[in-house]
Every structure is written in C-alpha cells, then in structure tokens.
C-alpha cells in the first residue's frame, strides 16, 4: 500500500470522484434511436452534477454494438448530446464495456488530461431481430474454435460453468432459481427496471431450457438502455457537490478466449472465473483492502448476474465467502438487504435488464445513489442499504469471464 501511495504521488495522479449519474429506462426501447437513448442518461447526469455540456472534457462511449446500425456510436452520441468538439472514443469489453469506459475516463481525470470526463454506456440491441442478437453474443469468445463449428451461445458458456459447479458442489437448479427470485423481487421496486414483476422458484423451474441446466428465468433479458457517470477531479468535485463518491479501486483482468482453456473449473478444483478473482484482488489492493472475508468492507454490491450461476460464482470470486459456500449465502438469503451483504438490490442484470454496453455504468448509478442514501427515495426504502462502511463494489464481467472489471466506490477520499 505504501508503495502504491508513493507511485501515486510521484506521478502526480489525482483522486477522482463521481459527481453526476444518469440512467434511462431499461427495456425494449422501440421508441428511440441510440443517440436519443444516450441523451436520457447524459441529460440526467448533467442535471445531477449541475454541469453543462461545455464542462465535459472527454466523452468515453461504451457500446458493444454489432446489432445496432450506427458504426460510430461515440460520435453520433457526442453530436446529439452536445459535447462537441470535446474528444471521444468508443470502448469495448463485451458486457463489461462501460466499466472499461469508466476506467478510461478515470485515468483521463486522474492523470490531469482533463478535469471532467463522462463515461457513457449505451446499447440498442433491438435494432436487430432476437436470433441475430443471440448469434452476436454467441460469437463473444473464440469465434473460430468454439462458434464456427459448435454454435456456442452465451447461455451455453455459463451453462458449462453451472454444470461444473453443480457437479462439484451438488448445487441444485432450485438453488440457482432463488437468485432469480431475489433479483426480480428488487427489480419490482426499481422504476427503471425492464421486469417489474416478482417471481417464485416455481416460475423459474417451470420455464423452458435455454441451455441446460439454465432455463429462461435463469437468464437476463435482451435490453436497450443507457447509463452515464460523470467523473471529476477533486478540485471540481469539491466545488460542485457535498457528496462526492470517490473511485478508490479499479481492478482489471482478461480470461482465455477459448472456454476449453479455463484451468480453474475444468480441473474441477472449483468453479469460478479466474479473471474475476484477479480483478478483485487488484481492486482490493488499490483500495487497501484484503482479499478473503471481503464482504465486511462493503455496504452493498452490484455483481454481474447475466445468469443466476454468474451471481453465485461472483460471491466466491470476490472473496465474500469461501469456495462452495456461495450456496450457503443463497440458501440463508444472506444477499438480501439486511443480510451479510446486499447484492443486486437494484434487480441486477437478471431483472433490471442487461443492455450489454450500459451495464457497468448502470451498476455505478445504483451504487452512487446507495452511498448518497438516495436509493430509497428513488426506488423503495426497502432497497436502500444501510451505509456504515461507506463503500460499495461493482463487479462487471465481459463475456464469460473474458473480461473482468471490479470497481470500488467510497465516500472516503482515497488519498489524504
């Protein structure tokens, strides 16, 4: 930690705070084009921060794309949102795309390159028919060796992890269903969620198989949506807000493109995502936290639950519990609000929706509101976590552990 602090100082890096957040309604957004959708989040974030478009020094657009028509979404959205002529770029890290956008924006501000940067996550999946979307997501791995002749799908990849986990720890399909039940429960309170209805274990168990052992209700939906996060240097943040939410840790890692090359779960030692473990360790180190028994540091977490099994593995990959004990957290309902650590109490990807490139910013939107203690008013007091540690965690995975980004938000300024 001392070493890190010394490096921080010697390069003249600055602390960076979230000063504004915005979020569109998630769902099948046939009513808007991609730039109009982006504006819903950008406009709200600017109002939240009390800034104007002229203040945005750089706009980083996270958009996975492929299924939507615009080939240069960063430019199209910059024009519509009025941030021209500030610089922009599009970043891609599959489902972790907008956490990557935040990481880039963070570094632009920390380095002094700009004082204010906007990370925008936007995805318009429904510009293509459903089978085409499935085709594109299925190609998110190693195209030639796992898709061209074998037709892997995104649910298929996670289903392989689910099979591995069930074979190793005796998890049942009903256990996975409990995670969907929780996330739908909290999505029912989130005004911007795609699915607002509560479900039961029976709903999940009766739904059809998408990729055995995962069923329809184990899977997140295909979603259109946007979310925006405005990051500012300490000087700017102090001027415009009393409640800056600092970024105190970012950890990143990359996993093998070929699922066949994943050592961790294929040796049947345990099931998990190596990249997520690595990203968590790096983020914890940067924030001065220890890996293992890590739930105690955080008041609330958003983890990447594109499928129910993904949330279960996240508990273990993040060191919230030991290997195989994620099941216990599920069975004891320890990840509901009031439990050991509230997880995805905004509905998660599972029920809030998963617009691929917008999910990371969406997580940070929820967590910022949680830390500012505004989430209760926004959604329901039942979904406002108790803020004791002043720390929250976003775990955003791209593909099936192909990319991993862990971001730690804190009410305490990282460097004194």
């Amino acid at each position, binding site marked *: 930690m001392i070493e890190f602090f010394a490096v921080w100082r010697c390069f003249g890096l600055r602390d960076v705070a979230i000063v504004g957040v915005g979020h569109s309604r998630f769902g099948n957004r046939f009513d808007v084009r991609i730039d109009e959708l982006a504006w819903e989040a950008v406009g709200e974030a600017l109002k939240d921060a009390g800034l104007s478009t002229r203040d945005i020094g750089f706009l980083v657009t996270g958009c996975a794309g492929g299924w939507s028509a615009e080939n240069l979404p960063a430019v199209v959205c910059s024009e519509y949102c009025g941030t021209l002529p500030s610089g922009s770029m599009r970043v891609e890290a599959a489902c972790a795309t907008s956490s990557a956008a935040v990481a880039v924006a963070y570094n632009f501000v920390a380095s002094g390159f700009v004082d204010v940067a906007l990370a925008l996550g936007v995805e318009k999946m429904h510009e293509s028919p459903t089978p085409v979307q499935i085709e594109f997501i299925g190609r998110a791995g190693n195209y030639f060796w796992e898709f061209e002749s074998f037709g892997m799908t995104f649910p298929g990849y996670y289903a*392989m992890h689910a099979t591995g986990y069930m074979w190793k720890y005796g998890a049942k399909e009903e256990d996975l269903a409990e995670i969907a039940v929780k996330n739908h429960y909290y999505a029912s309170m989130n005004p911007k969620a795609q699915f607002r209805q509560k479900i039961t274990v029976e709903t999940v168990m009766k739904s059809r198989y*998408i990729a055995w052992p995962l069923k329809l209700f184990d899977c997140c939906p295909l979603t259109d949506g946007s979310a925006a996060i405005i990051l500012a240097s300490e000087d700017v943040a102090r001027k415009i807000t009393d409640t800056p939410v600092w970024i105190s840790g970012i950890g990143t890692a990359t996993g093998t493109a*070929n699922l066949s090359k994943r050592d961790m779960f294929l040796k049947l030692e345990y099931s998990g995502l190596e990249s997520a473990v690595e990203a968590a360790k790096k983020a914890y180190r940067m924030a001065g936290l220890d890996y293992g028994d890590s739930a105690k540091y955080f008041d609330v977490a958003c983890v990447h639950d594109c499928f129910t099994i993904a949330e279960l593995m996240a508990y273990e990959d993040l060191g919230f519990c030991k290997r195989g004990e994620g099941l216990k957290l599920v069975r004891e309902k320890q990840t509901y609000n009031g439990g050991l650590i509230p997880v995805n109490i905004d509905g998660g990807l599972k029920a809030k929706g998963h617009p691929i490139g917008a999910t990371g910013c969406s997580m940070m939107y929820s967590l910022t509101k949680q830390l500012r203690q505004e989430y209760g008013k926004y959604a329901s007091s039942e979904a406002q976590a108790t803020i004791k540690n002043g720390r929250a965690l976003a775990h955003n995975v791209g593909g099936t552990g192909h990319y991993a980004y862990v971001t730690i938000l804190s009410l305490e300024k990282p460097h004194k």
Partner: protein
Amino acid sequence: MSNLGEIAKKVIEEKGLPLMEEAKTKLPLYISVRELPLRFQFGISKIQKFFDGLREGKIYITQCKKCGEKFFPPQADCPKCLTSDMDWVPLSGEGELVTCTMIAVKPSTYAHYKDYIVGIAQMKEGVRVLAWLNVDDPGKIKPRMKVKLSVVKREPEGFLTYEFTPAE
C-alpha cells in the same frame, strides 16, 4: 432478416416509406432498406497441418519444441519462448468429460440443427477440447465420463469436424 426486407419492399409500395408498427408495442419503426450480408474468411496457412489432419482422420495439436507447452487450439507461435518452432502431435482421442451443456435456443445460423450437446473434455495428452457430444440419451451423461474424440462429417453441410462419443 430477408423477411424484414420483404416487409420493407411492400410498405414502400403502399406508403412511400419503409415504416411498420412494432408487433407488441405498436410503436412506429423505420426498417433499413440496406441489408448487410456477413460471411468472413480466415487465413490458415500457419495451421494448415490441422486441416490436412482432419482429412486423414487425425486431430493435431502443436507442441513448442523449446518449452514443451502443448496447444489446442493449435497455434503456430509460442508466446513464452518467442519462437515458432512447433511439433505437430496427433491426439489419441481419449478424454474425460469435465463439463457440458445442451443448447436449446440456437443462434440464427444453427437453427437447422436439432438441440445439440457441447462438451469440454480433458484429453490424455493434457490439453482440453470443446466439441459436440454425440449421445443418444443425455440422461446417461456423467461427470468425468470417458469420451472418445474422432473426426466426423457434419451433416447436412458435409464438412469435416470432430466430435465426442461416449467411450464407456
């Protein structure tokens, strides 16, 4: 997609614009007049031996002559040794199933196949391979079951590929 193209053609004739109502929400949509067909091509000169092997009924991996690291999928370069001197080693085909799934909701380009099982097996030689598992009754699949990897013809296209079958 071509279906959408047909609709576009029809509504342009009727209304002068490619506009339609979205089925559920009844919201107005503009259907792009342009269709983009995508079919990619890949360079395989560095691993041509792999494809020659399929024609001989063999599945090859590569092994770095310097450090001994084995690669499947076969790759021509060893990033550890910074060398490109590889042995081509045929797999025995003997392996153990470590995970699998059955794909029910398929990508658009797989719509013509029946539901298929994809498995990953740990091969005797140390590498792991992902391929379809050809099994009559999915209920018979067990963790760590012995499987055999062999070259097969994929119908209806008729191209050579490889698949697992139960070996016990």
